[in-house]
């Protein structure tokens, strides 16, 4: 009986094999996909109950369990949304297979990336996640999709290569102390010896890991691939990419930080993270004002929020960081569902051609409006709580941060408000549904259901966190401190 974490990883991969082999008949693949995602979600949630510890190459601790549970929920929601909107993608058989298989591979890979204790395994997992997501981005085969996928592939390929170098360096630093063999790359072992390692190699390793995994996390100035990749793939892709992939990559950076930060002599990782975070926040905040494409806009806002959590972690407010990471995943995925549904109703993802949703489709429009308001940091979502903690902590610890932080938050929030009103208020623009329409009867309902459920989860996360989970998060804060 293999340990539960491995199940969490292998179930989606088995599903991927099945989906790749099974002939795509009618709606069957979508439903199978949904079913597997459901199983994955159940396992991921079940994992919350499991005791913490190391099982071979994987570890379960307070840091990754909440994120795994989160990926289970978002994966399920995305599968449901993709089942509802499959027909609008107009896949042929091969593409449908590729898409579904890649989806499951990605789920498993990023779960492995979260769960892995061995940094080498984590690297492999992130590479697999990259490959599968590249496949998903390119699946439409339109020139712009290929273009985006290619950019994604090249930039992240380089990034991953650098990350591998960093991993090797990390082992090199620890090697004299942990000796040879697998434990040399185990996070726990590394943390145990980090304080006595060679600070020079440690900082070198952190530099490479930061640039490498930071590329995948979309930190400015390594973010070039993100907007196009999230805007060109199939609709559920955007949610999965910004909801899950970014978390996994950022967690990798944090694991590295947690190791390197233990050595006083090494390059201090905190200020570096704060610097990257500020750059992301400010650039994204101003870039938001020039967006004309809805999905690209929210991709940029993902950059902004990843930057915010980076600042939180860099400042040493990991609780706020974790809360922000999870809250952003929930709300942003919800918003992407909303935008996707809207794009299908209006037949375009240009902001100018989507308007008045609140009047024409109240359930969708107000859900989207709430979500965007949440992204702008307004209650009642978890992002409000986390941003409060983050800004208050920043003001208390580094008062000079108030100005850049406030500027970025204000500019970004006002841009989001502008888009919120452009999308949801005013006279409705004419509907030009994509031929094929919604897959399920009452498809719009099925497309808006994930949106609202994720929003509800975001509210719970912020204000009605179950005690167990709260304890988990605070332990995570301790681990990452």
């Amino acid at each position, binding site marked *: 009986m293999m340990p539960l974490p491995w199940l969490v990883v292998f179930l989606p991969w088995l599903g991927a094999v099945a989906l790749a082999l099974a002939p795509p008949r009618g709606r069957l693949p979508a439903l199978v996909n949904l079913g597997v995602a459901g199983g994955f979600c159940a396992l991921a949630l079940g994992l919350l109950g499991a005791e913490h510890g190391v099982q071979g190459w994987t570890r379960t601790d307070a840091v990754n369990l909440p994120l795994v549970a989160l990926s289970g929920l978002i994966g399920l929601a995305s599968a449901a949304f993709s089942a509802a909107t499959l027909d609008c993608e107009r896949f042929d058989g091969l593409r449908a297979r590729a898409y579904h298989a890649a989806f499951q591979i990605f789920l498993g890979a990023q779960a492995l990336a979260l769960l892995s204790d*061995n940094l*080498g*395994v984590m*690297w*492999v997992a992130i*590479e697999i996640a990259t*490959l599968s997501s590249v496949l998903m981005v390119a699946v439409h085969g339109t*020139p*712009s999709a*290929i*273009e*985006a996928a*290619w*950019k994604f*592939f*090249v930039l992240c*390929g*380089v990034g*991953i*290569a*650098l990350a*591998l*170098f960093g*991993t*090797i*360096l990390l*082992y*090199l630093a620890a*090697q*004299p102390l942990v*000796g*040879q*063999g*697998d*434990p*040399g*790359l185990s996070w726990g072992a590394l943390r145990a010896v980090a304080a006595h390692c*060679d600070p*020079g*190699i440690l*900082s*070198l390793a952190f530099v490479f890991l930061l640039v490498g995994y930071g590329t995948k996390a979309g930190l400015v100035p390594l973010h070039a691939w993100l*907007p*196009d990749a999230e*805007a*060109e793939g199939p609709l559920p892709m955007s949610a999965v990419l910004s909801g899950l992939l970014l978390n996994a990559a950022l967690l990798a950076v944090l694991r590295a930080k947690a190791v390197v930060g233990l050595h006083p002599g090494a390059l201090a990782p905190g200020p570096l993270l704060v610097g990257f975070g500020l750059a992301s926040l400010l650039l994204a905040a101003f870039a938001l004002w020039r*967006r*004309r*494409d809805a999905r*690209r806009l929210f991709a940029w806002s993902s950059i902004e929020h990843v930057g915010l959590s980076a600042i939180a972690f860099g400042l040493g407010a990991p609780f706020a960081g974790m809360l922000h990471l999870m809250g952003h995943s929930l709300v942003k995925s919800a918003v992407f569902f909303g935008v996707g549904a809207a794009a299908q109703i209006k037949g375009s993802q*240009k902001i*100018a051609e989507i308007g008045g949703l609140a009047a024409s489709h109240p359930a969708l429009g107000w859900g989207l409006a709430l979500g965007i308001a949440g992204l702008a940091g307004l209650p009642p979502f978890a992002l409000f709580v986390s941003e409060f903690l983050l800004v208050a902590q920043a003001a208390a610890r580094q008062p000079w941060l108030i100005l850049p932080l406030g500027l970025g938050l204000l500019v970004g929030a006002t841009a989001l408000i502008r888009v919120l009103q452009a999308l949801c208020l005013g006279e409705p623009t004419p509907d030009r549904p994509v031929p094929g329409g919604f897959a399920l009867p009452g498809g719009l309902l099925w497309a808006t259901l994930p949106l609202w459920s994720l929003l509800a989860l975001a509210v719970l996360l912020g204000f009605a966190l179950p005690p167990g989970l709260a304890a988990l998060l605070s332990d995570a804060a301790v681990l990452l401190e």
Partner: protein
Amino acid sequence: MSFGSLPYDIAHLLGGAVLLMSFVLLYQRRLEAVIGAFAVQGALLAAAAFWQGFAQGAPHLYVTALLAFGAKALLIPLALRIALRRLGLHRTVETALGVGPSLLAAIALVGLSVLVVLPATAGQAQALTRENLALALSVVLLGMLMMIARRNAISQLIGLLSLENGLILAAIGVQGMPLVVELSTAALVLMLALVAGIFVFLLRDRLATLDTGDLARQRGEGEAP
């Protein structure tokens, strides 16, 4: 092992040769020559891996050596030559940064890597690892430099591949690195995927370079209103 001892000298020699090939890659002006140089680098890398396996008494490094040789010295160069012939791409390297300047930049980068590594690992890691690390880091940086300094898709790809060579060089150089085989294989898979991707890309619409197309022009957002 330490200075003066044969294993060290040979390992050092091989590492230096790999780095030298990176310079050669930057120096070449014709694509065939670039591919050839890359093949040689792959062969040298394989040799280095083989020797490290022998010297460290780590048999799994032989696998790495075989993989490296098979893929980097034979398979990929062959494929690239075929692609070159098939597509009849113009054969000269287009540079974003001239050959001379790029060589100067390369020297600077090597200096930087030495500067970074030597004080860093002073004392504790053995001399060989240190040297090896400096070499590998230089190879990595030079690979990246090549990606930036060249315009053709193929030479950019080769830059990335030689970057990966640098990774392997580092991995094998470290005493008892776990998962070497797995990691190198995974990296190789990534590279092969990239090669495949570039094939798709080149065959799709005879693009001679990586950065063209819609997104570069209008980022999928339509022209500004």
